[in-house]
């Protein structure tokens, strides 16, 4: 089954075909890799947009999209075209730069973070020592960018959403960092490839279930998925920070939503479910399979949970998640390290 590994490492294939060497070859490799992964992200967004609609419809006893294409598979394409054909309205009070630049920046940041992750032993762009830390440092910028967007739109609902964004950051970021530190402790470093290799015997989800729970909850909050969709709370704040965002930018925001879900599921799969490791099937397929199952679980959570209140989340973060993450750190140290 090595041919799939060969097939997906097209990056080096292009540069060798063009007889390039040195820095130019590296640059072309990176570009080709980025394009390939971006196509993968778009494909995931598209397929998962459809799967989520169908799954939630099934849970709720509906049919979901049925008209566009077989089983409504083309519905998202139709929505995409419709959204792009709509008028773009810039609110009078909005800060033009802050309001318009943030969503593209967030999407670019998300894609960049996905590029940093390893997809298989051969399909990876960066293999730096502090990869995991880099990812989480960049990821914690997200709520701040959302804050900028909400504040810049000049809408009161968006402003409240922006404030909630910062409060949320306070509640889940500290436990998240403790869990990442524990993962680094267990793997003996923050290199993502070493992290996956360290899980060849036992997945980290078995070694530290408490840490997994804290990480999963914090990740749901990070991804704005229910029950922590407090920023976007559509019954309270209409659409939160997206209230005044009109069609083309809203399309980007939808892409951003699913790309972030992809990123979050990838991180969970790599950190706790052994990344690409698995028998028979090629590593790349294993990783995507795990991502698919995790995303599916996140969807089911969405259909079955009631939204948490912002003050409750703060309470939950400091009274439950933080002690749990500390207990996890101490237990891991006592059991596996000492």
């Amino acid at each position: 089954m090595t041919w799939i590994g060969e097939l997906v490492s097209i990056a080096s294939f292009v540069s060798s075909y063009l007889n390039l060497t040195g820095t130019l070859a590296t640059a072309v490799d990176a570009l080709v890799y980025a394009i390939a992964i971006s196509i993968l992200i778009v494909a995931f967004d598209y397929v998962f947009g459809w799967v989520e609609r169908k799954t939630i419809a099934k849970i709720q006893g509906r049919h979901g999209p049925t008209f566009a294409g077989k089983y409504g598979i083309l519905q998202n394409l139709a929505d995409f075209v419709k959204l792009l054909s709509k008028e773009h309205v810039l609110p009078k009070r909005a800060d033009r730069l802050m309001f318009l630049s943030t969503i593209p920046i967030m999407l670019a940041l998300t894609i960049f973070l996905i590029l940093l992750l390893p997809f298989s032993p051969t399909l990876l762009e960066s293999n730096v020592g502090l990869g995991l830390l880099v990812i989480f440092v960049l990821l914690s910028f997200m709520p701040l960018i959302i804050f900028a967007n909400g504040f810049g739109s000049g809408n009161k609902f968006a402003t409240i959403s922006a404030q909630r964004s910062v409060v949320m950051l306070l509640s889940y970021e500290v436990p998240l960092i403790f869990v990442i530190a524990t993962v680094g402790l267990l793997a003996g470093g923050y290199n993502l490839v070493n992290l996956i290799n360290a899980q060849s015997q036992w997945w980290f989800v078995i070694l530290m279930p408490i840490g997994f729970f804290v990480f999963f909850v914090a990740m749901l909050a990070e991804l704005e998925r229910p029950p922590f969709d407090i920023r976007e709370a559509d019954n309270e704040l209409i659409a939160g920070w997206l209230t005044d965002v009109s069609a083309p930018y809203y399309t980007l925001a939808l892409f951003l939503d699913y790309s972030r879900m992809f990123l979050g599921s990838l991180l969970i799969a790599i950190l706790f479910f052994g990344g690409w490791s698995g028998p028979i099937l090629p590593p790349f397929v294993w990783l995507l399979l795990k991502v698919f199952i995790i995303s599916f679980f996140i969807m089911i959570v969405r259909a079955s949970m009631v939204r948490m209140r912002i003050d409750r989340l703060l309470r939950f973060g400091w009274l439950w998640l933080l002690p749990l993450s500390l207990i996890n750190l101490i237990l891991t140290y006592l059991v596996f390290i000492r």
Partner: protein
Amino acid sequence: MVTRINIGPVHPSTHGVLRLVVDIDGDTVVKLEPHIGFLHRGVEKLVETRMYMQSPPYMEKLDYVAPMSYDEAYVATVEKAMGVEVKERAMWIRTMLLELQRIASHLLWLGTMANDVGQFFTVFMWTFADRDVVLRLLEEASGARMFYVNMRIGGLIRDLPPGFEERAEEVMDHVEKRVKKYEDFLEASPLFMERMKGVGVMDREKAIELGVTGPVLRGSGVDYDVRKNNTYYVYEKLNFKPQLRSDGDCFARYKVRMMEIRESIRLVRDALAGMPDGDALGMPIKLILPSAKNRMVSVSRELPRGECLMYMIADPQRPYRLSIRAPTFINLAAMSEISKGCRTADIFAISGSLDLVMGDVDR
């Protein structure tokens, strides 16, 4: 710093066209002011220009979630003005239909309530499907799915179709199972419980002072139900018990409504069991010539949302004046009182637990 936000009239969870002007300090509500009137259609005035039995369709559009209850309240007022006795079998059928309507209305409320606290449409879709089962039953009995207009002076437009009892039994078994499922599903979730418990507390004295009625009043522990205290039709014979909770918070109001669905199921079963034979048809519309003997009448009814009082000054041809005490109008007035000091997210839990229907508020 106090910020003023304007929620509605176009907003995902204002149940129609309610506008709330809210002053918030951080995340705490300082002042909440409902602005109403976006759905005012002047029904009370319209009724004055129509003959008596031309009005029920207007009445039904007041509370479009429980149309039959309003229809019945109006027809009962006209009957009282005319001094007409309702036929025995018609009384039993009316009681049963009203309770079916109450179940349908409460099921819709449950879905929207779950949505208001941030459930992503799951319970909403489930309860809508179950409400449809009940509506199908009502359709069988009256001929229409939503706006029935099946009350006539002294009886009904038609008797129950053959085989209705068995189907009603089936539906009641189904709804009973589903209500259990909803309760298990929602109350097993600590997130739901903490959104509902201790939120929007209205104690007994305050509830009486504010004049709220229906499940909102009974959620505050006041034993008042028009079906019991000012009984009508056959509720006495069916041994009806009002459902009470004493906490006065959103959870108590939720629980009262859930228990009321159960009680209504029991009432429907009892009514089906004890239904007498005979004639249930009312007078044809053409024959109506109301005597002006009882000029001023008032009829009080327990609607799914609370007490409705219809006050009518009757003329021989048409009502001289009809005044309606709408239950949700009074219940909405309590909202600014009980949501003081709550969190921004709780506004919607409270408005959901009051079960507002803007058609009823604005009339």
